């Protein structure tokens, strides 16, 4: 911009140079008006220029501020300079906070949500189900067969058909690999999960996969996924126990599987009953044995004590007996008979008949009632 905005009159003041040639016409009122308008225009231009300068300054500030960006706490970011990752190793990842970049195409920022957990579900081995049916837990009607491409299922190692579904939760472990090496890492992970489900099903028996060893089935699926992810360097991180498995028998044979479970339970109940009986029988035998032993001990003690007492009594009575055996016997017999007659419930004395004939006695003996033991209920 030309800088000729000197004050009017300073260049061509007629009074300042008397020897200078005089203008053809003396300045009149029109000349004065022209100078004033030129001065106003110059002032306006100067003001406009100042505004433009301010605007440019503001634009520069806006440009600098437009490069400021933030990375959230659950993210990292990767800065590309002309398409190439900036930095080396860990320095390639920009951590959460305030950062600055130049506009595209010099710099480009790729955000990676490393803190978020992502979920992939494999239903390649699950029966066809609408979301409404899945929500209500409704199962499909048995058709007697499974249609390829419609009804998902897996083949168990014993040739049986089962339904298996896997859900994998993962986080991004290596953002560079996950973002720049794979066009659709989630899709590839989905295929890997499908593969793991069929791979593991193929080596487990149906009963193991469905009931007996479900946990091992789950662990095997996780191990397979981790192995394939590692081989591909997919850049995802799977924590222990982040693969969840559902397995079910096909609806066509579900009743047969239920019958097996029932039979298993019935067999177990029979065994448990027998074990209860066994415990009871053994305990009873131990108790009875204890009674027998104590009875034996008591009897032996009684025997020894009684015989010892009798021997003692014998020794004491012997002198009396030897003095007069006949008297001794009659005395003792009479004494005992007295006791016997006292204790006897019924005593019948038959005096001699007048005709000297013997008495004829007729006894009507009724069978004594037996005390029947109450029969205990049978356990078998």
């Amino acid at each position, binding site marked *: 911009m030309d800088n000729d905005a000197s004050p009017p009159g300073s260049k061509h003041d007629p009074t300042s140079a008397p020897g200078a040639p005089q203008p053809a016409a003396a300045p009149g009122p029109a000349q004065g008006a022209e100078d004033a308008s030129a001065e106003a225009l110059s002032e306006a231009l100067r003001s406009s220029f100042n505004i433009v300068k301010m605007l440019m300054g503001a634009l520069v500030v806006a440009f600098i501020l437009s490069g400021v960006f933030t990375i959230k706490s659950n993210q990292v970011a990767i800065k590309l300079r002309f398409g190439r990752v900036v930095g080396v190793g860990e320095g390639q990842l920009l951590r959460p906070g305030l950062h600055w970049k130049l506009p595209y195409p010099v710099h480009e920022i790729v955000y990676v949500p490393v803190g978020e957990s992502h979920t992939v579900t494999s239903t390649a081995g699950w029966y066809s189900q609408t979301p409404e049916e899945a929500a209500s837990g409704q199962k499909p009607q048995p058709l007697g067969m499974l249609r390829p491409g419609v009804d998902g299922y897996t*083949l168990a190692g014993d040739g049986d058909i089962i339904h298996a579904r896997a859900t994998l939760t993962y986080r991004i472990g290596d953002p560079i690999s996950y973002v720049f090496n794979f066009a659709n890492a989630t899709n590839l992970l989905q295929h890997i999960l499908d593969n793991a489900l069929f791979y593991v099903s193929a080596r487990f028996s149906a009963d193991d996969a469905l009931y007996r060893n479900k946990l091992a089935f789950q662990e095997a699926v996780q191990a397979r996924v981790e192995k394939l992810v590692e*081989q591909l360097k997919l850049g995802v991180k799977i924590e222990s126990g982040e693969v969840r498995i559902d397995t079910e028998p096909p609806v066509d044979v579900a009743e047969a599987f239920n019958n097996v479970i029932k039979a298993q339970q019935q067999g177990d109940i029979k065994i448990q009953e027998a074990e209860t009986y066994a415990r009871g029988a053994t305990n009873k035998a131990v108790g009875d044995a204890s009674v*027998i032993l104590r009875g034996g001990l008591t009897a032996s003690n009684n025997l020894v004590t009684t015989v010892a007492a009798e021997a003692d009594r014998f020794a004491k009575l012997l002198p009396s007996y030897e003095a007069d*055996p006949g008297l001794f016997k009659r005395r003792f017999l009479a004494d005992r008979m007295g*006791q016997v*007659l006292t204790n006897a*419930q019924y005593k*019948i004395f038959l005096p001699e008949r007048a005709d000297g004939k013997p008495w004829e006695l007729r006894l009507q003996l009724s069978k004594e009632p037996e005390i029947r033991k109450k029969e205990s209920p049978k356990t078998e």
Partner: protein
Amino acid sequence: MKRNPITVFTAAVLLVIFACMLFTFQVRQTEVAVVTTFGRYSHSVTNAGFQFRLPWPIQKVYQFDHRVQSFERKFDETITKDQINVIIAVYAGWRIADPKLFLESFNGDTTRAEQTLEPVIRNAKSGVISTNNFSDLISTNQAELKFDQIEKAMLDAVQAQIKQTYGVAIESLGIKQLGLPESITSTVFERMRAERQRLVAGYLSEGERRAKITRADADAQANKILAEASGEAKRILGEADAKASQYYEAFRKNPDLAIFLMQLNALEQSLKDRAYLILGPQTAPFNLLNGAPGDAGAGVRK
């Protein structure tokens, strides 16, 4: 005429931008590029970043996505070595290995590349499955299974065909579905039902068998315990008899008295309770009633 430096700077910036557009290009981290000069291949760029070029129409730059692409082949039926029809679907992860070949083969079109890959993968899959038995794919015997080997054989077969021809490399290939034709599934269901019925019978009879064994074992154990206890009781009684016999030695001094005392005891014990005594006039002490002493003569019923 004096130039404003801002104007000069702005013009210079515009000039640089224009020059960059004409003489440079950038290859993103996810890409590879092929540069052709007057339509002929010049060179490939596999390093990401800022690159120089001659302006169009002298040089032309083709940029391709270098990331692993996920390819999924729909299932189809194939036959194993032991003549079993199986339904198999595979997936593959592929990427551009040679940008020049890729450009020449598919003109850089990913869809065309996948259309070409499809029959190659299908043939490899059928070829490998036909050389393996069904038990190589599914078996509870780990030693028999060849799942990994089958997948690797498919990968090798595909890799051999495509890398040198199309400039495409397979990073991974795996089975993502394995099944049986519709009609076979109903046969499998019948077999599964029969197998479960057999299991039902097996579990019930096994429960019965084990319950019987448990009861019989328990009875035997109880009898053994009782027998041992009886034996022990007899032994104790035997010892008591042996001990008592020492006292019996004393009775030898006068066996007549000993027998008399024992008989008295027996008489007393036997008539202790619920006895009917029928006594005659000769029975002591009732013989006193006859005025003459006599010995016993009574009928006793207990």
